[in-house]
């Protein structure tokens, strides 16, 4: 009993003594609030978090806080103090897309940027050995002749892959039935078993399921993007206009902190993140996972993110167009 009391006493003293210790940031572990369920994409954030944590001498944990198309993570991080101990893993959906659709009341300008993290491009895939469509034009021709006949999944409805997919279909005036899946791994299974005809996937999913799918086209104009999918053709190689450029048709994230975070704390975080991302080993690890380090500095934030917002509007319109087409087919 006596020992327990002594231990408790020691504990209380230690706790009280803490604030008196050195006030150098960071003095405890940092959290990165990640907006999706755990998976390949979260692993990419963890790679950066680990490298950045090493620079800072503390642990940075990536906390999965999925919900409400990514906005729950933002709400969670916003409810924390602006002390630099909480980093927003600013994916394009909660950062730009959801506010555009009126589901969140912030804009990208309401945050202080650290560095941009990675980008990942999407691709249209069919099951391995699919003999109905040998390339993208053949798939599109089929969808044009048989509107609503093909079943496809971009993962979640209204997400970025969905927009890009819908955009390609809209540009070529083709209609396919959308089937949303919150877990894209499950959709891959249904693609394999022949229930779905095609899918829009990301590099993380591709890396795991290489043997199960054939890539018809990569949905990006960037050279790097084709490499991620082992040299598959890009949409424009078939003369099809994607109607979106730069980062717009891709998934990407930019690490952010609250706007009112003290300047010296922001400077420390920026320096650590910059050093982590410029480490070649870190870059290679990310590339191996299918995620391309974008290496935009904090200063380039407005210049890069601003135009994306405009381009994304056309994606939102494409999704609305698709909905209209599918509804008219039902009647």
């Amino acid at each position, binding site marked *: 009993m006596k020992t327990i009391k002594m231990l408790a006493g020691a504990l209380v003293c230690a706790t009280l003594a803490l604030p008196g210790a050195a006030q150098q940031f960071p003095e405890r572990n940092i959290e990165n609030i990640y907006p999706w369920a755990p998976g390949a994409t979260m692993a990419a954030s963890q790679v950066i978090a680990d490298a950045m944590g090493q620079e800072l001498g503390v642990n940075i944990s990536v906390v999965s806080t999925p919900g409400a198309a990514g906005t729950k993570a933002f709400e969670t991080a916003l409810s924390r103090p602006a002390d630099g101990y909480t980093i927003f893993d600013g994916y394009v959906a909660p950062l730009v897309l959801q506010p555009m659709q009126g589901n969140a009341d912030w804009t990208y300008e309401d945050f202080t940027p650290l560095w941009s993290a990675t980008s990942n491009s999407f691709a249209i895939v069919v099951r391995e050995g699919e003999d109905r469509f040998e390339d993208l034009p053949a798939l599109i021709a089929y969808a044009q002749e048989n509107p609503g006949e093909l079943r496809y999944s971009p993962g979640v409805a209204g997400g970025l892959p969905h927009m890009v997919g819908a955009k390609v279909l809209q540009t070529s005036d083709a209609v396919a039935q959308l089937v949303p*899946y919150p877990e894209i791994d499950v959709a891959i299974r249904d693609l394999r078993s022949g229930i779905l005809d095609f899918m829009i996937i990301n590099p993380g999913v591709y890396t795991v399921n290489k043997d199960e799918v054939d890539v018809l086209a990569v949905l990006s104009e960037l050279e790097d993007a084709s490499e991620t999918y082992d040299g598959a053709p890009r949409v424009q190689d078939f003369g099809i206009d994607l109607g979106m450029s730069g980062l717009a048709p891709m998934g990407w994230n930019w690490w952010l902190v609250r706007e009112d975070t003290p300047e010296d704390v922001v400077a420390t975080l920026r320096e650590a993140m910059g050093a982590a991302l410029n480490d070649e080993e870190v870059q290679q690890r990310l590339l191996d996972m299918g995620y391309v380090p974008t290496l935009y500095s904090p200063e380039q934030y407005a210049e890069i993110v601003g135009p994306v917002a405009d381009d994304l509007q056309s994606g939102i319109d494409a999704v609305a167009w698709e909905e209209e087409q599918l509804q008219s087919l039902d009647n």
Partner: protein
Amino acid sequence: MLELIREGVPLFFSAQALLLTSLGVAAGLVIGVLPGLGPLMGIVLMLPVAFHLPPVPAMGMLIAIYIGGSAGGSISAILLRIPGTPLAAATLFDGYPMAQKGRAQDAVGLAVSASAIGGLIGGLILLFFSPILADFALRFAPPEYAAMAILGLLTISLVSEGSPLKGMLSGGLGLVLAMVGTDEFTNAYRFTFGNFNLSSGPHLVAVVVGLFALSEVVFQIEGGGFLKRPSIDRLGISLKGLRLILSHKLNLLRSALIGTFFGAIPGAGGDVSAFISYATAKRLAREEEGYGDGAPGGVVATEAANNGTCGGALIPSLSLGIPGDASTAVLLGALFLLGFFPGPDLFQNTPEIAGGIFLAYLTSNVVLLVLGLLLAPFFGSVLRIPKAWLLPIVLLLSTLGTYALQNSVFDLWVMLVFGVVGYVLRRASYPLAPIIIGMILGPVLENNFRRALLLSRDGLSIFIERPISATILAVDALLLIAIVISTIRRSISPRASASDPV
């Protein structure tokens, strides 16, 4: 099968996973020994911790608690005539008389050995059948998943304590809770009342801790006797139990198989299998063995069965995503929260996780044998901990763990609300496990149903055109009829149902 094990080896044989598995067994034993706190409570209390660990060590720890907890209950049954868990209720028939005759040491040794070996047999069956079942389930598509989810909900209501009707109502409550949050098809918010904390629904772990842990604390407080310290025979360390069990080989094997079989039927659970196995052993025994009067065979039969059940219950849980009992439902929830969807995909895409879980299960049983025999003297002291100490510890762990999930005070409110809900429902003898199953299976059911309709070219016919889906739906219909009939029977002769053990 061996493939899975090979994949799992590097993940499981790490210092962290092995240590956590051993600690899990020890913690499970302690919590199983303590009257009123079963393996489920152990899993619930450690769930928030598991949430912060890599998947295999996390699942290893939780499964180890499940195993240790299922065995621990026998010790208080033998020494005090109070089963630490309902699983051990049948163990006191012969365990307590054995202790009265001065053979407490032998009884505990036998119970631990039978549990461990029974669990291992269950594990081998798990290892053999899960991949086969999972392989079959690879042919499942949205219609089949929707039908399976209904099957899971119906079976848990049919076999949980209390009336099936109340089970279904509880399951319905779980389904309603599952609807709170963001609709996965349209991203619309449902029942969130403008509160972003609800945008992905109430946290499953906060609900589980509230329903099970908080309500149990209230029940224990009502029971009184806060400072009571029972007097118990001292136990020593002895390997005699292992030697004794050799004379019960046939009984051991039969009981483990009975346990595994009943475990694999969703919802049946360890208490049912222990009673059935005990009854079978008693019927097959010779008169002079003296069942009910301190027969070692009785202890072997119940303990081998209730730990065999653990292996059995994991079969449908891991391969189909349909939990076998309340504990596996929470284990499934944990796996889900760690980012892995139980079912054929687990075996297909992440065989290293499935293999790691199998290894954790098998290792837990081996550790159980060692720790169970070595720690025997220690359990006596655990049993002497008065409630006045125990209940605050449970409350503290519940609160800390739930808060740590997302560092969210909101989760604490959720826990508190469901503590009250759990208490009220238990008072009115509504089973709680179906709520959890409903919460887990709700999205599976709803999303696959809607997805099936989007895939279908001809409306609802997709559910009957596909043979597997049609078959599962037919089974669903039969179960529903069984529930209706049993409900009508109960309302006609309420007294007959009161003594119904299931």
